[in-house]
């Protein structure tokens, strides 16, 4: 089920009349049958967008399409969606079985079919042994699986998840995100999940939508977005350790870092923000000299800090190429991995 958002806008007005634009003119096409991440910092409008797709918020402007149907004015229960809330929203007084069966009571299917479906879902998310427990007797991960089962039992067209992993501890998070990927692959339902954790989004999603202050920044497959960020915000948001940004000058189609020429580039002369990811540095005898200010050995990699044009820069290199206590090293940058961004608009303009 392909989802299309056209010019979607949501403005909240509070009691004193102050308006906040949560989502600003969003135009997105979400491919059918894929696992999509809505990614962005807190307050960027991702949950609002999700709720508008669900039908719990009415958009101020714009349209939403599920496939060929326009659902903008449609009530949530008519859209055929499944929604998993951040705190799972399981009914505390009902058993797991009753929780999962609850949505089916509102559909017109026979009871035997309902029970069959419930069992199917319970098997899919691996909670068959927990069917007679109450939510309070389950762990966080188990509760979430029940919530997913409940959302899927209606055989919805779209599955929506609001920050599904933020309430889990670190180890469970790893486990559950793989579970989500597996479930999505088995059911082939178009799935959208909201998160602020870029590593999580990058690891399992087929496509990422990055938002900032309600404005779409980039829509791409994770690795694509990582390697070719459309603007400086996306570049800075993805990647751990984060990308290094310093000031650079272009003169006569050549990029200079300070006085040193780096390479040729097809942009106009002027000042630019230059971005290089820490892992794109190489220890290279033919590279440029660098005074190491700090060394952190992290097992397989080593993080070194050095100063470049006044900015504290990080480089992530093989542990084998740096000796502890080393103070000088020669580095170079992989081809095409120096990104140039316009100083005012932040848009990417070229690579070196």
């Amino acid at each position: 089920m392909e989802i299309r958002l056209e010019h979607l806008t949501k403005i909240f007005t509070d009691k004193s009349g102050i308006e906040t634009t949560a989502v600003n003119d969003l135009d997105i096409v979400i491919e059918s049958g894929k696992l999509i991440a809505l990614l962005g910092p807190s307050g960027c409008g991702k949950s609002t967008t999700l709720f508008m797709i669900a039908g719990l918020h009415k958009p101020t402007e714009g349209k939403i399409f599920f496939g060929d149907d326009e659902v903008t004015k449609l009530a949530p229960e008519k859209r055929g969606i499944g929604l998993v809330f951040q705190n799972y929203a399981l009914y505390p007084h009902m058993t797991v079985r009753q929780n999962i069966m609850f949505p089916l009571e509102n559909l017109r299917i026979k009871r035997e079919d309902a029970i069959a479906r419930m069992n199917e879902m319970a098997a899919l998310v691996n909670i068959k042994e927990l069917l007679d427990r109450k939510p309070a007797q389950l762990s966080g991960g188990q509760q979430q699986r029940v919530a997913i089962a409940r959302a899927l039992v209606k055989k919805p067209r779209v599955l929506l998840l609001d920050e599904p992993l933020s309430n889990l501890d670190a180890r469970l998070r790893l486990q559950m995100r793989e579970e989500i990927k597996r479930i999505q692959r088995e059911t082939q339902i178009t799935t959208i999940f909201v998160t602020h954790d870029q590593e999580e989004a990058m690891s399992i999603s087929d496509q990422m939508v990055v938002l900032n202050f309600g404005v779409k920044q980039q829509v791409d497959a994770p690795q694509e977005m990582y390697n070719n960020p459309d603007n400086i915000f996306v570049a800075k948001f993805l990647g751990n350790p984060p990308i290094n940004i310093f000031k650079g000058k272009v003169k006569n189609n050549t990029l200079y870092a300070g006085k040193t020429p780096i390479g040729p580039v097809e942009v106009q002369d002027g000042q630019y923000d230059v971005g290089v990811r820490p892992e794109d540095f190489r220890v290279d005898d033919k590279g440029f000299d660098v005074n190491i200010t700090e060394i952190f050995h992290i097992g397989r990699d080593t993080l070194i800090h050095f100063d470049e044009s006044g900015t504290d820069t990080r480089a992530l290199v093989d542990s084998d190429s740096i000796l502890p206590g080393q103070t000088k090293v020669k580095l170079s940058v992989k081809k095409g991995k120096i990104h140039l961004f316009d100083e005012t608009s932040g848009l990417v303009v070229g690579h070196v």
Partner: protein
Amino acid sequence: MKNIYFKRYRRQELISLIFDFLAIIAYITIFLMFFRMIKLPLGEGGNVDLGALAYPQVYQWTFGEIKSETVNTVLTLMALFLVVAIPMFVIGVKKLKNGLIYDVDLPMTWAKFFQALISLLLVNPISFVIKLISTFTLLRVVKDYGFIGFIKNIPSRIKQLFEKKPKEEKEPEEEDEDTIRLKKNISRQNFRKLSRMFFTYMFLVLIALFIMIPFYWMVIASLMTYYESSVNPNPSLFLLFSDTQWINYKTVLQELNFGLYIKNTVIVALVSTAGTIITTILAAYAFAKIQFKGRETLFSILIMTMMVPGEIFIITNFITVSGNGFGWIAMGTGNNHYFLAMTIPFMTSISYIFFLRQSFKQVPDSLYRAARVDGCSDFKYLTRVMIPIASPIIFTITILNILGAWNAFIWPRLITSTGGTEGQQYWLISVALRDASFNVPGGDRIMYNLQIAASALVTVPLIIIFLVFRKYIMNGIGRSGTKG
């Protein structure tokens, strides 16, 4: 290993509880049987001769004649048995539901033993035997030896009692000033602590006596003869079992019509409570979950009216229900609907709406949204989700409302007083207590024994309800802060 014994213990507990329950049923049956035997003495002309109540009588039953003293003794005995057996049973049931193996320790074993003894006193030999067995099962759980081990231990324990402990060689300690002062301080502290404990408990016991004396006197006086209660300048503070005049209660119920009044009160309590629950649930849900304009304003108005004293409402409501309004009490003409007037004005209560709204608000909104996404309507959400989650609160409101109806006085009195003798048929018990005549026939001396028996009849159900639902009542009052 311990688990097996614990499971066995629980099984034995269950069996003994069943027998306890049967015993309670037996006590109640015997009580009712003997109570039915009591016949009110008839005077000339076939009317009940209240003056003759005090004299010992002879009743007929299946085995011939029986003296009223015996009947009284049996009744008192059964009442005492019930007073002991029912709480023990209730506590036993609660323990069985929640019992964990971790709660088991030696004091609990002793407690079980005492329970066995009590069962014996209550003439329940089967329960006694079972409880005794379960005591030893419990002992096995706690101390790993059972009855046999216990018996084996006895000789060695007796020996221990009589052995003198060998005096340990104490090294002569240099007790310097600091040690002496420290020891003195500690002993002084201990003394202070002990005396504080003592005085605290004394104080609490005195207050407890102050609270309980009216209840005690109520029970005693209700079972006295007229002479003892109203004429004797030196009424005794205790009664022999055979002197307890259960005939007082029969008189109050039948002759003085309190059975009818109790029935009236129950009807009013049930109807008004049913109405209150329905209106309160609907209104609390609207105020808690449905967003509509003016919600907070309307709610504030309701809160403000809580400040107004009830007397203001009563005046107008009296007019409303009488001839000029709904005509339920038509002040003189027939066709009076006393029950309507006594129940309908009280089918809703702002403080309960406030109380329930608070509980509803505590249910997270995400549950509501999840239900909406599943196509659940507001009403279905209310009945399938909100009400079950808030059921303890709803139960509390039910109990508090029933208590309120039982104790209602001012309004029912106002209503029924307009009806003259016809209105008397609709008295609620508080009104009857105040307005019924307990005078000696033909005189104006009050028969206190009957009056206090009526009071006891009114109070004892309240105490029972309180003891059973104590948690709900105290929770509800603490949270809602009013008497509703």
